[in-house]
């Protein structure tokens, strides 16, 4: 028993040659978020508050594909989505199609707590944000130079989806092979799972979606059971190729294996990841007993975890490689 925390900043084909200027700010953000979440849990904050707090911080970081730094649709706009879920009560909230809300995860929580519904999208979600008086920004606030360039390159290559972490041309080290045209993994989604000292579980995930996505596209992140799920046994946040995660109901399946087959967390997570096409998924998960899994079948996943007994890990590729 004891508290535990895990977070991610996306899984995908992250090149091992990722230049320091792309790597370091992300690792620093993971470190800062891990410390923030750990301190909150140490102070006795509830798991639900902690996952919201950490995901807000990740959304505010322009280096990840959520909140500020969200990738752009084919129309050059941002459409953000997020989901939050509390394990003990199975309460959950989700939002899609946000273009002005500074922190999508907090609006998802308000949908959970202040509406009769679970999931609001597009204009209705924006109207609700205004009713609730949450912080909004001009849509241009979310759009970074890097993402304008990513969209341009995706369109030039006629790629509907590109790997968010592929270095932009010009940044690319000469020995790097060019990104394959059919490489359509999605990296940069952020998520956090936590179990607090009282054994309460919670999860939250937030994303800008896919580069060059069709306007109106919904991915796995806000779909309860796909990108996000928590119950009394575990909390899970997934990232990767959204369409694969939806059809494999990845987050719920980790919980379902624990619930229906009696598997421990790590075995359940490993089995779900192994059953999903290679390169498609990564997840972070914690169990009520304070176990952690950060399983992925992608080249890498920006990730970090901490537990009450002092174990800490921050990584991108193989375990512990970036400590």
């Amino acid at each position, binding site marked *: 028993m004891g508290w535990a925390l895990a977070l991610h900043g996306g899984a995908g084909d992250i090149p091992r040659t990722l230049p320091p200027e792309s790597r370091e700010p992300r690792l620093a953000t993971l470190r800062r978020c891990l410390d923030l979440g750990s301190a909150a849990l140490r102070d006795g904050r509830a798991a639900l508050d902690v996952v919201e707090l950490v995901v807000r911080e990740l959304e505010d970081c322009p280096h990840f594909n959520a909140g500020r730094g969200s990738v752009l649709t084919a129309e050059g706009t941002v459409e953000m989505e997020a989901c939050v879920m509390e394990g003990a009560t199975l309460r959950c909230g989700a939002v899609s199609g946000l273009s002005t809300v500074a922190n999508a995860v907090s609006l998802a929580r308000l949908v959970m*707590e202040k509406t009769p519904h679970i999931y609001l999208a597009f204009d209705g979600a924006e109207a609700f944000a205004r009713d609730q008086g949450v912080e909004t920004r001009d849509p241009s606030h979310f759009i970074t130079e890097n993402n304008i360039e990513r969209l341009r390159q995706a369109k030039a290559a006629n790629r509907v989806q590109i790997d968010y972490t592929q270095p932009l041309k010009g940044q690319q080290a000469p020995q790097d092979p060019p990104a394959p045209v059919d490489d359509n993994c999605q990296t940069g989604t952020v998520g956090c799972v936590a179990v607090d000292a009282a054994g309460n579980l919670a999860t939250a995930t937030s994303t800008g979606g896919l580069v060059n996505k069709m306007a109106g596209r919904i991915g796995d992140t806000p779909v309860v*059971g796909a990108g996000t799920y928590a119950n009394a046994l575990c909390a899970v946040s997934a990232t990767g190729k959204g369409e694969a995660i939806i059809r494999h*109901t990845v987050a*719920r399946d980790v919980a379902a294996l624990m619930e229906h087959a009696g598997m421990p967390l790590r075995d359940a997570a490993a089995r779900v990841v192994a059953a999903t096409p290679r390169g498609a998924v990564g997840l972070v998960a914690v169990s009520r007993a304070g176990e952690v899994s950060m399983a992925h079948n992608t080249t890498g996943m920006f990730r970090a975890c901490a537990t009450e007994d002092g174990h800490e890990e921050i990584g991108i590729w193989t375990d512990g490689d970036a400590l």
Partner: protein
Amino acid sequence: MARWAIAIHGGAGVDPNLPESRQEEAKRLLARCLQAGVDMLRSGAAALDVVEAVVRELETDPFFNSGRGSALTRRGTVEMEASIMDGRGRRCGAVSGVSTVKNPVSLARRVMDKSPHSYLAFDGAEEFAREQGLETVDNSYFITEDNVGMLKLAKEAGAILFDYRIPLTGTDTCSALAGAVDNKHNGMVMNGLPISIYAPETVGCAVVDSTGACAAATSTGGLMNKMTGRIGDSPLIGSGTYACDACAVSCTGEGEAIIRSTLARDVAAVMEYKGLPLQQAVDYCVKERLDEGFAGVIAVSKTGEVAYGFNCTGMFRGCATEDGFMEVGIWE
């Protein structure tokens, strides 16, 4: 050769005082749609085509809450949603916030077949429908006199359609709750609405064809008096709709409860991980996996079984199997 089977529904949570004539009308419609599916299956149609065709029939008839006859948002508009899933390869497509597409289930299928994505919503979904040349109509086509009246009643009942079993923090819901469970409605409430006003949500179909392929589709107008932008369980893969190699499932009822329990996927997960046969898996999920919510489930297995289950007052449903069994029913 496998044996085909089909199950359909037109919503769970039926007013026990529903007039006899409406009951008969519902049964006739269910029987007609079921027969259309059976005819297709007999002539060798694929499960995916059958679920789409049957749901299109159910959408086109104004009786149930999908397509024409959809429940209205607070603003008196229609926002429809649907999903479809092919058990083979678990391909899927879903749409939400559709306001002019005559048959949302067919748009969901186009998303699956013709887009790189699985789920499109609101303006983007409408735009895609136009690109694909799907039949569109004015939003008023979907709005029936009955539903205009129901929306008025829902508003008068003070039923803001909250998921009333889950305590809300920081909001005053007492007055709404008092209105919703007023004794003149025998205290029977679905989704916060008196059962006499509640429109049984959603239509759906689950099919296994004679090659053993499973598919499911679900379509809905959502909740009467819902907030604009509200997404329910119907378009969510794993909640309202699910299909895999082993089975196909479509759910209906209180959407929020179905989402929390990922009900459709769980029927399949219980078969897969607990080894239960189809009907036992449906019973287990309805009994053990729904929290306080009311819902109904229809399902078929790859071996040609059909099953249904619900924990509320009735479900509009019908099922048929290759060996000649056919049933249309409302109550237990």
